[in-house]
């Protein structure tokens, strides 16, 4: 029949691997695509067990899969997103992708032809391209998400992300009755520094200061640039004693840090405000404003000093 001839011809011209197995896992059909990609002639494959031709197949998994197709008489799938490939076949972009084997989408179809034993048809599609670009996209999206969280100049968290972190830490601290401390510091006379050394000098100071402070912090501490020359640190599970210790070390570290800029040495100091969460704080903004007030006190008391939020010292 010509229709059958057409089907055979198409099966051999399709850019899809077509493989039919019987209930004993013996191969009964093998199209040209597979002959070429697996580099095995039909006469060496037909009648052979699929696990001998493809020893890389996960036998137990594969059998359970085929079993479901036979038993439920319904098609099944295997996507590259969960399993990069089933069959170790070469692909068409060996030069321009880093994939070793062809990424595959496989379909398992039950074949019901009258007076015939049960068979399963396996279709193998090359999705190396999709896999390659999807991976690239995923990596780019991750980079983008990261860039969204980071202050471009100082490489610490930006204000938006830092506040989101504080919001989370604040509600967690309230829920579990954990301690939570906040440190905010501001570089003293920064405007003068900018006037003296130019904005380039000011930028170097911000970058170097962020670097020095990052090294002082614990893993769980969250360090962000609050704005201009003001930085802020969230210290989860920390009480006033612990927070004061960190604050003092920050103050000292900044005052001792010598920044080299165009053959001159820049020295800078910082005023530091500290507050811890109290029962009265219902919003994270409360904690920020207490810390900010302490920072203002530090500025008013002559700078290069650590001040504690007032209501806490009174308590």
């Amino acid at each position, binding site marked *: 029949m010509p229709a059958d001839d057409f089907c055979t011809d198409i099966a051999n011209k399709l850019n899809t691997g077509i493989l039919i197995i019987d209930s004993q896992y013996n191969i009964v059909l093998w199209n040209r695509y597979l002959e070429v990609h697996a580099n095995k002639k039909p006469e060496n494959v037909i009648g052979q067990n699929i696990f001998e031709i493809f020893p890389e197949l*996960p036998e*137990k*998994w594969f059998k*359970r*899969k085929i079993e*479901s197709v036979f*038993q*439920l*008489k*319904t*098609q*099944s*799938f295997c*996507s590259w*997103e*969960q*399993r990069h490939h089933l069959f170790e076949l070469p692909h068409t972009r060996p030069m321009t992708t880093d994939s070793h084997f062809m990424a595959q*989408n496989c*379909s398992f179809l039950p074949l019901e032809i009258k007076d015939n034993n049960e068979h399963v048809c396996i279709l193998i599609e090359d999705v190396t391209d999709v896999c390659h670009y999807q991976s690239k996209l995923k990596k780019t999206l991750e980079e983008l998400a990261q860039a969204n969280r980071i202050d471009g100049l100082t490489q610490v968290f930006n204000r938006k992300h830092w506040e989101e972190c504080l919001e989370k830490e604040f509600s967690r601290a309230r829920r579990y009755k954990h301690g939570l401390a906040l440190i905010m510091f501001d570089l003293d006379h920064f405007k003068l520094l900018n006037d003296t050394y130019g904005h380039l000098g000011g930028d170097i100071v911000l970058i170097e200061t962020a670097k020095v402070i990052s090294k002082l912090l614990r893993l769980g501490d969250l360090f962000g640039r609050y704005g201009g020359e003001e930085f802020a640190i969230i210290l989860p599970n920390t009480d006033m004693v612990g927070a004061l210790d960190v604050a003092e070390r920050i103050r000292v570290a900044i005052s001792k840090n010598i920044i080299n800029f165009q053959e001159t040495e820049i020295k800078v100091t910082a005023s530091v405000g500290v507050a811890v969460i109290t029962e009265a704080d219902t919003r994270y903004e409360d904690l920020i404003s207490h810390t900010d007030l302490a920072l203002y006190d530090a500025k008013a008391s002559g700078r290069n000093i650590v001040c504690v939020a007032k209501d806490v010292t009174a308590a």
Partner: protein
Amino acid sequence: MSDLNLNEDQQDCLQEIINVAMGQASDQLARYLNTFVYLKVPSIEQVSTISLLNMLNSNENSAAVVSQGFFGYEGIRGEALLMYKPKDSDRLADLLGYEPDELSVEEQIIDLSSILTTTFLNVFAKQIDNQMSYSAPRLLAGSQSAISDHLAQQSFNWDLALKVKITYQVTDYSFNCDMVLFIPESAIINIKTVIDRILEEF
């Protein structure tokens, strides 16, 4: 819009076809998984795009949502969404008879979803003298991303859909899964034609 609504007889007929499909699918499933599947009366309702979004958002704490498209003769087509609760996902490997380290949770969920969807729809199709084809199942939301992230970015090309919700309860594993079939506006008319043909025989 009124021609998209099912009348009482049509709704009843569809419900009964779904009942039978659900029964036979559960039987196959119970044999395959070697367990008992508890059946509840399925719900059928007309939903708008907005209420779909709301429903999916209220399922925010689902562990996973898997989508699989289906299409048959006479323009019967739609999309099946399978939704799982987080606490259930660790029982899946057990249920499917896989070794725990043999495959990822995601793969297990996709496998089970495909089995649930295709066994049900195969019986459904048989009753209306139809035959279904399926697209590969896709994980829309898992541990990595929320379903709303996925949907918020797209505009829908339909306003109304027929929503069929079926709850599978596998007793031995106290495991739950909701299967929701969405039949888009343009396919509802086709379903109605088929239902009317069946009703005529009565």
